């Protein structure tokens, strides 16, 4: 069992937890992920390592409540325990040798983008961060990003905070102002990453994306997380989750992501059924 040593509500749908897992904390690097199971009947879900404290032996996860399992996870409190917590999985993000990078985070994807931005900053790279949220209430990690970025742009879809528009608008503007980047790192919803790549392709800026397909074991034994990258099948859990954005087949990844939508809706309604409406 893995103890929750700290729980913090970041916004109405996003929660941060520090989990006691000394062995994982010792090894984890930005870009890697863990798999957890809330309880005995629980499913295995992947979550990115948002931070770690090697001394305290804790690993930080940040999750958005999107379905039954994240809802159940959010019901747990400090001092409570997770059934299973395994990692670090996947390959760490490659940050070596990068001098100037645009880090783009969308929604809860910011929780994955932040440790990468932090590591780049620690290595002395110039970091420009662009973060995007649907509205002001959903903003997370603003202070953290500001602390590691020489430029920071906040975007909201409805303009309720920062600038109105999408992260691609902000990136386009920076490029138009003459900024050049060794690399763009984009982490967020598939559709966001797809459009970032569309833009960077036009400007021929190398772009790395962090993929988030359905996973079960996370160790390379099932291929549930497979993607087409450069025309070849890759397993995101062992070959990724980071890939060259120019090579990823986003449309296929988006289709595969909807595989269990019906089941997920049903499970969520059973778990979170405030109004006791009939679950079909």
């Amino acid at each position, binding site marked *: 069992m893995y103890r929750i040593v700290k729980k913090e509500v970041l916004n109405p749908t996003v929660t941060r937890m520090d989990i006691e897992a000394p062995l994982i904390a010792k090894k984890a690097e930005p870009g890697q992920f863990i798999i957890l199971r809330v309880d005995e009947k*629980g499913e295995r879900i992947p979550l990115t390592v948002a931070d770690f404290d090697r001394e305290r032996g804790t690993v930080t996860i940040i999750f958005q409540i999107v379905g039954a399992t994240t809802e159940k996870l959010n019901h747990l409190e400090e001092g409570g325990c997770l059934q299973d917590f395994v990692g670090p999985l996947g390959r760490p993000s490659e940050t070596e040798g990068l001098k100037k990078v645009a880090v783009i985070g969308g929604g809860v994807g910011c929780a994955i983008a932040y440790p990468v931005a932090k590591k780049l900053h620690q290595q002395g790279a110039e970091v420009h961060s662009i973060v995007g949220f649907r509205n002001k209430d959903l903003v997370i990690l603003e202070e953290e990003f500001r602390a590691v970025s020489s430029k920071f742009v906040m975007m909201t879809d409805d303009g309720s905070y920062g600038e109105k528009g999408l992260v691609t608008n902000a990136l386009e503007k920076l490029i138009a102002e003459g900024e050049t980047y060794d690399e763009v790192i984009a982490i967020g919803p598939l559709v966001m990453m797809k459009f970032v790549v569309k833009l960077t392709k036009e400007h021929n800026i190398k772009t790395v994306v962090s993929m988030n397909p359905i996973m*079960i*074991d996370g*160790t*390379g034994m099932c291929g*549930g997380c497979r993607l087409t990258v450069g025309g070849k099948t890759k397993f995101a859990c062992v070959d990724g989750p980071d890939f060259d954005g120019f090579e990823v087949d986003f449309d296929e990844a988006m289709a595969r992501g909807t595989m269990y939508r019906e089941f997920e809706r049903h499970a969520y309604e059973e778990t979170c059924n405030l109004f006791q409406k009939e679950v079909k």
Partner: protein
Amino acid sequence: MPNMSLKKNEMPSQAPDVRNKNFLEVALGYTEEQALDEAQRCLHCKNKPCVAGCPVGIHIPDFIAKVAEGDFEGAYQIITQSSSLPAVCGRVCPQETQCEQKCVRGIKGEPVGIGRLERFVADWHNKNVCEAPRKPAPNGHKVAVIGSGPSGLTCAGDLAKKGYAVTVFEALHTAGGVLVYGIPEFRLPKDIVQKEIDGLKALGVDVQTNMVIGRVLSIDELLEQGYEAVFIGSGAGLPRFMNIPGENLKGVYSANEFLTRVNLMKAYQPGSDTPIEHAKRVAVVGGGNVAMDAARCAKRLGAEEVFIVYRRSEKELPARAEEVEHAKEEGIVFHLLNNPTQILGDENGNVKGMECIRMELGEPDASGRRRPVEVPGSEFTLDVDCVIMAIGTSPNPLIKSTTQGLETQKWGGIIVNEETGLTSREGVYAGGDAVTGAATVILAMGAGKTAATAIDEYIQSKA
């Protein structure tokens, strides 16, 4: 006077059209009377050919003699001298190519039901004897075992019996390897696997789950931590795909994914949080035990029609004869001498069919099997909404890629000395599917046993 009946005592089983709707065990096992009667069929040959057919060399006529006397616990003690998992092996070994193939009674009539008797004895012990095995005196040496499948469990059990402090590192959240995620409940009930693992724990084996060696700790770190030897029993869990168009459509699974969802995550049970597709028409590509398991699970999840699509003929099916028989009884349809060429999808990216081509058998290849050749122009489409690829697995590259100096074959198998299981690294041993590629439970156990002996000799020679 031996029982000279030419036929084995039948195994009581659930009726086919009942069992293909539930996940309860198909074969129900012998009663005491049936076991006593079957044991009488053994002739106690002097040269014991059956023993030579068993990869771990169980003293078969001796344990059968005990069964015939009605001393079932005595029989159990004889089996466990050689095998750590008798309740498992009695169920899943392909006896027709091992012990029973060599049985003299099989020359004229059916061989003695050795597997069924082994299973009976193990089940009898598990039901009637609660006494935990005595913990051996510790010898002060530490060994790490990577993977808790059949080879790792056997190696751990043998070393623990000699007094070693053994730690087993398992990547998944439940120990057992293919016994828990691969082989379904209806063929191998999971409480039986758990009982065997509890037995090892009682011997002092420490099982640590959620430990992915190669990520959380490397083999070199284990050696630095004071483990004097390491056994790699990480299996062959990397699924193969055919690389045909449409393989990434929704509704195409590797058998590993399908079976892991069903068996390990219990997706067939209401109340499990893990989803699974309840497809209506399913094609399973392949002809091994894994293909049979996947097909029979799909049927139990409510599929109306399930097809096995296999590129060779019935004779070449690598699955255990009993499982092929069971699959047919349960209504699985075999499309033999057929090979998929592409998977067809609808506008939403869901599987709507699979195009196949007919095959004929050509000249024998290097392995002696006749190579299937396509019949030009014979393409046809199977109307299916789910495809499960069960065409084999390779060793997972994680350990190899994180262990300096560990030599492997081109296809990923770890290279070892066959006599000892020793790898190219001192103190590091390997066995089971990680070395051979996908094979059988009992071969993996044999390899675990060999390595345990070699590890003991290695550590004692240093001491």
